[in-house]
């Protein structure tokens, strides 16, 4: 029982860490692309 519980705690921190990692990478990518679009692509179009 204790082994399984410790395993589930491992799943908890690894799971939350992975979700945050993916979400933060996606967020940064979107923000980066929006910055790139606003500062480079749009100005080039103008």
């Amino acid at each position, binding site marked *: 029982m204790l082994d399984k519980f410790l395993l589930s705690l*491992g*799943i*908890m921190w690894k*799971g939350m860490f992975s979700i*945050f990692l*993916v*979400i933060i990478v996606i967020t940064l*990518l979107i923000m980066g*692309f929006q910055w790139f*679009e606003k500062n480079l692509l749009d100005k080039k179009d103008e």
Partner: protein
Amino acid sequence: MNFLLSGLTSVTVPQLIMYLVGFLLIYLAIKKGYEPSLLLPMGFGAILVNLPLSGVIDQTLPGIGNTHGIIQWLFESGIEASEALPLLLFIGIGAMIDFGPLLSNPIMMLFGAAAQFGIFLTISVAVLLGFDLRDAASIGIIGAADGPTSILVSQILKSNYIGPIAVAAYSYMALVPLVQPFAIRLVTTKKERLIRMPYNPVSVSKRIRIIFPIAVTMIAGFVAPQSVSLVGFLMFGNLLRECGVLHSLSDAAQNILANLVTLLLGITVSFSMRAEAFVTWQTLVILVLGLVAFVFDTIGGVLFAKFINLFRKNKINPMIGAAGISAFPMSARVVQKMSIKEDPTNHLLMHAIGANVSGQIASVLAGGIVLNLLTTLL
């Protein structure tokens, strides 16, 4: 005349209980309007599969031998063998979602991640209550607030409790307007609920709308390959919507495909609501654990918003964190309703919708990550 009464006389008490469960689900669907597209087929299916010697499931009849039943066949081919039905539904869901509010305010993405906390907490609680790790993980996924994800994960993990998990997932999604305000009030003060957030939308180009589903699929796939079927089908549906050249396919995915699969999914899942599998004390425990998952998802999102506020000049209304669960759009509506109840001029809907669609991504991601971790750890 005995042959006419043989069905009636062979009804068991657990089957009678399942008829009541079926009637209850149909009542909730019709009278209360709780997720009727799923609870009604599930309720009717619960009655159908629990009729003695029901022809919708495989039977061995004296003098005839084995007969095949349509619901068992649908379950075995559409869910058990391929997980096709829940996955196909994701194409429709992806085609329905407008990620615009999220893309114009990407910081809202984080709340989707935080509001998956209930999943992992519930896994630990289920383990403490004596459930096997596979079953515990399947029960925890009820907190994804996403019926197809719950069905898919519990099926892949070969959980013994797919029926109760599906019922809990869809029931609590319908009960979000009751569950979330309670959980939000538990961890916020009136002053916090009154925080105003100006909405300054940034225009989102078509280019970003197209890149977004492709990028999300690739990033999720690299980190959690098991999530690719879930995230990939969701994002494929969204790409159909946003590409601008496949209007008829996008319409078909949003309407025909989603409706057809929803119709079949509800009645197919009822196969796992046979009395012998459903009428157990574990079902009641699973229903309680589902509630725990929803409450702690909400609390996780709200507390994360409060944590972020420690570092921000422009404070975020912590209720926005609660909208990070996947129940779309109910959760965003709950936050909006609560905010205007506190202050009729404080409109948080667009922020909440941003967090809510992020929850859609994060919940399927959580499903894939749980599968990934279990296959690595077991």
